[in-house]
């Protein structure tokens, strides 16, 4: 087990995946899953700041009730750009394609993903898709929102929707190929002894996510093709003029896009399971139940899409059925949350940067999750649908959940990815700033929604009393922006100035910490991997106390006695 000597000076190994080849071609043609993860990290971060810029302009516009800064058309294009970039090019690929690509093969003891070339192709499809979508923004923008509801997107809008949809189609195949790769890898590439119930939860989460991707993404891909055909060739599948059904588009869109919110949150939940166990120095409570709840969320997630159409021509019976199914998803989500909390209970929690993100995640996910049943219950949704309550709800899950999970995981695996430690002070500070800024940004939106402010409006001169909440939200957004910019600086600085991390700076269990160097070798392992230990075997680590001391935690009572 990890008997690393604490306080020892570490050195970066001479040869690792980052310096094994310095040419640009060695990066752009790489088949190494770790290098592809780094490529994804760069491109995903870029898209995050593009989407963030659009969000900043949206918040700026809403500080005034009269909508003085932009016209309605410009505002429509801004929030559409924000939604499209953030959903399809940041949150969906962020955790699986960056952290999953990097850690998943190492965690199961494989030398690479099953199909390295396919993995590289995924990244290229992502980049080409992103470039096409950005081009469509430059050529005039898209004003139908990230949901592209027909007949607005198919008949009435005369913006660059067709081009944008081509980009999204390619990005969809990027994520399908990643999903196929992960499924084959988890099924067939596990090291001897790595049984299904020894898999780390991050692997379970990515596996369940891949199942959703493989089953759901093709449906939305073909739906978007139908919209393109309707715009360009005047086919008429969703056209109400011909007796077609525009709501059918919504059903097909949400058949993917509701499970897609589980594509976004499940990998982040997997990250949280890893982190909460490591920094509580305790085995994850209820391993099997957490694994089953992951699969249950993925399965039930496919049966709830109708709750987006409670008020678009669905019958009451349909509404009730979808409502009940929606409320059922709360059960596995709650199982996870209880298990994380119980893992911390009587554990010895160390407040490192990743752990602060974990605590932020749990709190915000709780708020975001518990406002879900409000929207899932038909009677309540009558009043709340289409308001800022919905906006606040899904931002608590997507930003407060998925992005917190991504940042937590990034800070956790950063020493493994690049071999150096970042500044713990700046790390903890940024985590706090993000948490505070987030609450200031999105909590007022719950109130706004409750007061009835509709989403996607760019003025509210008819209700100037909403201005104070909007200003609070915009002020919070600027704090949040600072919180997101800080890691760019201190993480980049750590690449040059950071202390060498050594193979296992957190004293964590798992193959990636105990069997590889930091950064890992191109082929990951120097030895043949045979797994004998159970997962999260923190109880067996003898130097828990030293790790806790190293990261600023107090020794526990019983430990003081043994000193």
């Amino acid at each position, binding site marked *: 087990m990890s008997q690393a000597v604490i306080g020892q000076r570490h050195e970066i190994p001479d040869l690792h995946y980052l310096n094994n080849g310095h040419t640009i071609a060695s990066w752009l043609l790489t088949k190494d899953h770790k290098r592809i993860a780094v490529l994804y990290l760069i491109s995903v971060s870029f898209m995050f700041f593009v989407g963030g810029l659009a969000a900043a302009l949206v918040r700026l516009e809403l500080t005034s009730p009269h909508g003085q800064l932009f016209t309605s058309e410009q505002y429509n294009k801004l929030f559409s750009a924000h939604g499209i970039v953030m959903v399809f090019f940041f949150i969906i690929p962020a955790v699986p394609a960056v952290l999953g690509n990097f850690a998943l093969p190492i965690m199961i003891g*494989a*030398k*690479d*993903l*099953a*199909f*390295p070339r*396919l993995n590289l192709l995924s990244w290229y499809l992502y980049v080409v898709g992103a470039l096409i979508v950005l081009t469509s923004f430059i050529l005039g923008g898209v004003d139908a929102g990230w949901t592209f509801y027909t007949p607005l997107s198919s008949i009435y809008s005369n913006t660059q929707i067709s081009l944008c949809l081509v980009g999204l189609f390619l990005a969809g195949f990027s994520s*399908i190929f990643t*999903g*196929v*790769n992960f*499924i*084959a*890898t988890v*099924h*067939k*590439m596990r090291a001897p002894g790595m049984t299904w119930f020894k898999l780390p939860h991050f692997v379970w989460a990515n596996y369940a996510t891949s199942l959703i991707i*493989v*089953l*759901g*993404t*093709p*449906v939305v*891909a*073909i*739906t978007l*093709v*139908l919209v393109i*055909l309707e715009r360009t*060739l*005047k*086919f*008429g*599948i969703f*056209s109400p*003029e*011909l*007796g*077609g*059904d525009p709501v*059918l588009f919504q059903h*097909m869109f949400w*058949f993917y896009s509701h499970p897609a919110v589980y594509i976004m949150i499940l990998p982040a939940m997997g990250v949280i399971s890893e982190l909460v166990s490591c920094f509580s120095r305790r085995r994850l409570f209820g391993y099997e139940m957490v694994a089953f709840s992951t699969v249950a969320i993925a399965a039930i997630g496919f049966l709830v899409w109708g709750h987006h159409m409670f008020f678009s021509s669905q019958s009451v019976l349909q509404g009730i059925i979808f409502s009940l199914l929606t409320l059922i998803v709360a059960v596995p989500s709650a199982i996870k949350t209880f298990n994380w909390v119980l893992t911390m209970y009587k554990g010895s929690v160390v407040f490192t940067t990743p752990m602060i993100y974990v605590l932020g995640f749990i709190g915000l996910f709780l708020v975001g999750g518990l406002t879900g049943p409000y929207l899932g219950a038909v009677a309540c949704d009558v009043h709340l649908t289409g308001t800022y309550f919905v906006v606040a709800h899904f931002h608590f899950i997507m930003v407060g959940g998925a992005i917190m999970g991504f940042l937590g995981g990034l800070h956790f695996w950063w020493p493994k990815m690049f071999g150096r430690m970042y500044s713990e002070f700046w790390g903890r500070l940024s985590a706090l700033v993000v948490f505070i800024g987030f609450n200031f940004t999105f909590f007022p939106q719950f109130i706004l929604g409750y007061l009835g402010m509709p989403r996607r409006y760019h003025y509210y001169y008819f209700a100037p009393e909403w201005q104070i909440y909007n200003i609070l939200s915009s002020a919070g957004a600027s704090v949040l922006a600072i919180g997101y910019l800080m890691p760019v600086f201190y993480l980049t600085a750590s690449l040059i100035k950071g202390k060498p991390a050594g193979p296992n700076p957190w004293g964590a269990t798992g193959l990636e910490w105990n069997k590889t160097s930091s950064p890992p070798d191109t*082929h990951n392992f120097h030895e043949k991997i045979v797994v004998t230990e159970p997962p999260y075997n923190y109880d067996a680590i003898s130097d828990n106390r030293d790790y806790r001391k190293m990261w600023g935690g107090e020794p526990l009572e019983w430990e003081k006695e043994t000193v």
Partner: protein
Amino acid sequence: MAAHGAAIDPNEPVVYEQYETIEQQQETYLVGMWSFLVTEVMMFGALFLVYSLYRWKFRGEFFMFHEELSWQWGGLNTMNLLFSSFLMAKAVQATQLKRAKAQMWYLAGTIVCAFIFLIIKAIEWIPKFEHHLVPTASFHWPPHEPHGSGGGSPEHAKIFYSLYFTMTGLHGLHVVIGIIAITILMVMTKLKAKAITDYIPTEMVGLYWHFVDLVWIFLYPLFYLIPR
């Protein structure tokens, strides 16, 4: 591991470096291919869903619209594709038995069938452009010289033909991709490329081709054989 350092035996399949054994590699490729086919099933599945909904909504009229489609040409193409699937199955078998020449002949036969399919498709499609049955802006119903009754509303007819061209078009695209895949497979096998050292590439192309065939098995009755 076997491939590292030691001289490569040309008769033994290459194990890529991420795998431990050839069995693991072969099984992984098949798992990956089946996962991809699940994706394809869902993609066509969405279109079949749309078809079912509109067929149910306009059930009386769909029978009149389909009369412009020729069940004879469609039936010929069905038999043609079934035969190509048989050839493909024989090609996979020949590869497993390491009968290189037979493999090539069977693959070539499959490609010929695929081209015959596309030619028949063109014979069906091209007159529809002339008769304004392609659901673009110039769509016109009833046709000038209808094969059937020509009844039903023009709007619903446009939905039917939108579905027809989308679904058979997507299927035709898959046939084209299949032709490209088989051609690449044949060229690389002929050149003894490093990527092809066992039967798995042929098996994967075969799985794909059977899937393409299977989609048509559903498309044919749904569009051409609706009872009057």
